[in-house]
């Protein structure tokens, strides 16, 4: 009898412990797991300076973000976070960091517009895009998401539902971390520093 009670209590303690560690330690916003090597990898898209591959930036820490220019709020916030994290680096360190803003809206965003848009935030961030097939392939590779949504009641015409993560790629070209779009710039800076 006593044994049963002990097991029951032990079981309850384990459940409470599991719940507590989930509640206390679990991330507030769920961040996709990328522990397996299935997420990430090289790709090629177009920039104002021609085709760029992720592997062109080997030796640099690369921050990848999927967005679009007519994104009024979330994308500028993420790019401002990147700018603030990059601005905290020394001149020498900055040369080893690259932001890649991947537009999922090639219909509206040209490479010239993307260049002007990303330069506004930082000269270390470049804008790239491609055909729908090319974009879809990279989106799938990185477990990202986007969907065009018709907005009949708005002058916007359509909007894009999208995942908003900052993917941190180490100098070897491997996915090292995935951060929320509104991560604290100091935290992003520390994460970059860890791979420099």
């Amino acid at each position, binding site marked *: 009898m006593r044994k049963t009670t002990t097991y029951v209590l032990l079981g309850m303690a384990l459940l409470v412990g599991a719940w507590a560690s989930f509640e206390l330690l679990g991330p507030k*916003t*769920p*961040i*996709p797991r990328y522990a397996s090597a299935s997420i990430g990898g090289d790709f090629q898209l177009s920039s104002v300076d021609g085709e760029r591959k992720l592997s062109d930036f080997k030796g640099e820490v690369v921050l990848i973000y999927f967005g679009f*220019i*007519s994104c*009024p*709020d*979330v994308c*500028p*916030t993420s*790019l*401002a*976070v990147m700018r*603030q994290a990059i601005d*905290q680096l020394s001149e020498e360190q900055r040369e080893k960091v690259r932001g890649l803003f991947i537009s999922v809206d090639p219909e509206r*965003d040209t490479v010239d*517009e*993307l260049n*002007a*848009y990303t*330069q*506004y*935030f930082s000269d270390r961030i470049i804008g790239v895009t491609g055909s729908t097939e090319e974009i879809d392939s990279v989106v799938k590779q990185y477990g990202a*998401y986007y969907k065009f*949504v018709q*907005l009949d*009641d*708005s*002058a*916007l015409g359509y*909007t894009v*539902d*999208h*995942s*908003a*993560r900052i993917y941190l790629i180490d100098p070897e070209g491997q996915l090292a971390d995935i951060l929320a*779009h*509104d991560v*604290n*710039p*100091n*935290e992003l*800076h*520390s994460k970059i520093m860890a791979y420099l």
Partner: protein
Amino acid sequence: MKYLATALLISASLAQAADMSFDEVRVRAVPPGANISAVFMNVKNNTSTDLAIISVDSSVADSVELHNNSTEDGKMKMRRIDQIKLNANSEIKLKPGGLHIMLIGLKRPLVEGDKIDLRVNLSDATSQSLEVPVVTIRPTMNKMTH
């Protein structure tokens, strides 16, 4: 918080409308290529009547709409909404990642230091004119040392 001082000045000039207050009013400076922007503010309804923002006008944009951002399963969604409710004796914050006023089809680029005109139309048929400073929205750094 440069815009705070400006917003305070503006609200001071609107002191007669003590039953409604509009604080920290600011519009996001626009990166090149983007012809849309968002206006944020804190609106306080000090009256005992439930009100709502039903529309907004500005001379700088072709259309001005009320929008809301929401996150579902890590997916960001933005949708137009009909009104922003201002319940009696309560405050609502229009801020990045949430409710905002969208300027669509900007007639000129919005550069930090500029000001734009805005008229907020309320459900009780009154409206509030605001002069809104253009600011570069910087993410909060919190108080973290590194």
